[in-house]
């Protein structure tokens, strides 16, 4: 688990560098300071379970086994990435690993994950699904319909609300009259577990409890993880609106330093072992970055493939350069 926390942060740092160097061309949304929520809860899943990460859940995806090189290939828009360069950030769906990617419009992913859970239920499988939402995303209509639907159909699903205090620039207190986010699931008759989102062990425990409920067939659970977004919304956000004292306060609760302290205090690991984990991670990620940067960009014509499940892409004459003549070129009446 320590390794996954470190991998998450270190991989995001590398992505940030790649962004500065122009290799990552879209946006980058970090999970700095809240890595424990995703890593801890995702640890509760087993083989065959599905996970639907939100934008700040790189940690959960790594726990589920996505190789870091795939992440870098994706962010650098390479042909070999999990989206073949067609979509960005963490928008990949990887069936073999049970990862269901989001789309940008917030809230809809939960509705789609319901369909996976419904399939499990209908097939008599005891597999379960887990997904994540920022507190901001819970305000969308899709999020509501999704949770109500899961509750009505008692689907095996765990929703983790990542209450990180901000939705972009907007404080959660400012834009919802809810005082305790653990009240939200009450509207759906769904039980809630509140948890310190910066305590990776507590997050894992909450995950295990919620996942067991779902596996037993007792329907959905919401986990409300209290955490804090330690950076701006995205890399282009100067984050000037974030109070310095608050940041300082939360810096003291850094989930990685905290877990590291715990491991050392409990004698579960030595400093040397921690250091060598960090070195191994560095080596793994450096290799991933090198490999990704050496990989090819997609061929332009690939833009046309895979819209439908069809062997041949549609020909779209008159949109492309000199090589392609419209069929009309031949259609002069003789």
């Amino acid at each position: 688990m320590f390794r996954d926390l470190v991998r998450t942060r270190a991989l995001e740092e590398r992505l940030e560098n790649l962004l500065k160097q122009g290799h990552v061309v879209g946006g980058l949304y970090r999970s700095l300071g809240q890595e424990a929520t995703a890593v801890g809860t995702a640890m509760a899943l087993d083989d065959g379970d599905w996970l639907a990460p939100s934008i700040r859940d790189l940690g959960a995806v790594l726990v589920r086994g996505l190789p870091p090189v795939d992440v870098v290939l994706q962010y650098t828009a390479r042909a070999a990435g999990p989206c073949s360069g067609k979509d960005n950030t963490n928008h990949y769906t990887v069936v073999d690993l049970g990862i269901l990617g989001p789309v940008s419009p917030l809230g809809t992913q939960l509705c789609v994950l319901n369909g996976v859970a419904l399939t499990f239920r209908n097939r008599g499988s005891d597999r379960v699904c887990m997904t994540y939402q920022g507190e901001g995303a819970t305000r969308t209509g899709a999020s509501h319909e999704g949770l109500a639907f899961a509750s009505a159909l008692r689907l095996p699903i765990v929703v983790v609300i990542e209450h990180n205090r901000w939705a972009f620039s907007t404080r959660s207190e400012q834009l919802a009259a809810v005082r305790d986010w653990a009240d939200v699931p009450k509207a759906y008759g769904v039980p809630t577990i509140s948890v310190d989102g910066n305590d990776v062990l507590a997050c894992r425990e909450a995950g295990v409890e919620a996942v067991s409920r779902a596996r037993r067939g007792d329907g959905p659970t919401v986990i409300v993880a209290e955490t804090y977004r330690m950076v701006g919304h995205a890399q282009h956000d100067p984050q000037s609106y974030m109070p310095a004292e608050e940041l300082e306060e939360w810096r003291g609760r850094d989930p990685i330093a905290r877990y590291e302290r715990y491991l050392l205090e409990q004698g579960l690991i030595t400093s040397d072992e921690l250091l060598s984990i960090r070195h191994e991670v560095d080596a793994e990620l450096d290799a991933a970055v090198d490999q990704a940067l050496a990989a090819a960009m997609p061929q332009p014509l690939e833009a046309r493939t895979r819209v439908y499940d069809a062997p041949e892409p549609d020909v779209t004459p008159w949109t492309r350069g000199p090589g392609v003549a419209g069929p009309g070129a031949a259609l002069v009446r003789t």
Partner: protein
Amino acid sequence: MTTTYLEAIRRAMLTEMRADPSVFIMGEDIANYGGAFKITEGFLEEFGPERVVDTPISEAAIVGAAIGAAHMGLKPICEMQFIDFIAPAFDMIVNFAAKVRYRTGVGAGLVIRGPCGGGARAGPFHSQNVESYFANVPGLKMVAPATAHDAMGLLRSSIRDPDPVLYFEHKFLYRRVKEDLPENEDVLIPLGKARTHREGDALTLVTYGAMVYKAEEAADRVANQDGVEIEVLDLRTLRPLDTDAIVASVMKTGRLLIVHEAPRFGGFAGEITAQVCEEAFEWLDAPIRRVTAIDTPVPYSPPLEDYFLPQTEDIVTAARWLLAY
């Protein structure tokens, strides 16, 4: 066996659900009640609550669940109580269902079906034709059958299709269209193929849905009164569009009239016109014309709705104008 358009839709689903356990249906009031139009009456008893799923009033959640289930290999059918209620699911359809294969390589073979169209005095929210809202969205297919035979064969193909299909059933035809459909006939009609509803050589009339019958009526009247044969092409599938069939007919007749029930501006006739201009311009002996509803919402009061909807008389007038050109 005499089969209504509605019964054909019902039988298509029954056939597919019996043949393939991965086919299932979700919607509001479809299980206990059998659907607002009773299309799924008895389905719950036959297939059980796992495959005939009553849902809360939440169209986005319904379509969303269908996408996820499709990812897992199931074949979901989503019923919209009226097709107008597809609007709250617009984001889910356009941004998730339509784009997911392209983005991720994982497709979403699902059907969204529901009653469309006017003439039932049902007002602005139970009468719309929504095809144009989705026309510019790559990744979707769209089907709009006019006959019971097509309704059955196209719905079966839609259910089997690996991509998301919007299936528009015209409520005005539900019980008015009756055809003899052999009980055991394996009607399976490929998507993307138009059908020549009526042969002719003087003018090509392209249409779909309930307008096929007004087009036919107009063509018959012109044939009887003017002795000229209009070819009526029923598109059946709007996307993929059977451009070849349209172009072939226009090359034969040299004249094109497009008729649809949705309003004119930004309606589906535009795409057809553009394609014919690109591919058969030299064969056109007259301007391409369209007869459509007027550019307003669907009004409720009968005199208003009658004025709103394209009528046989309008089609006759337009056809004669073209024929005289």
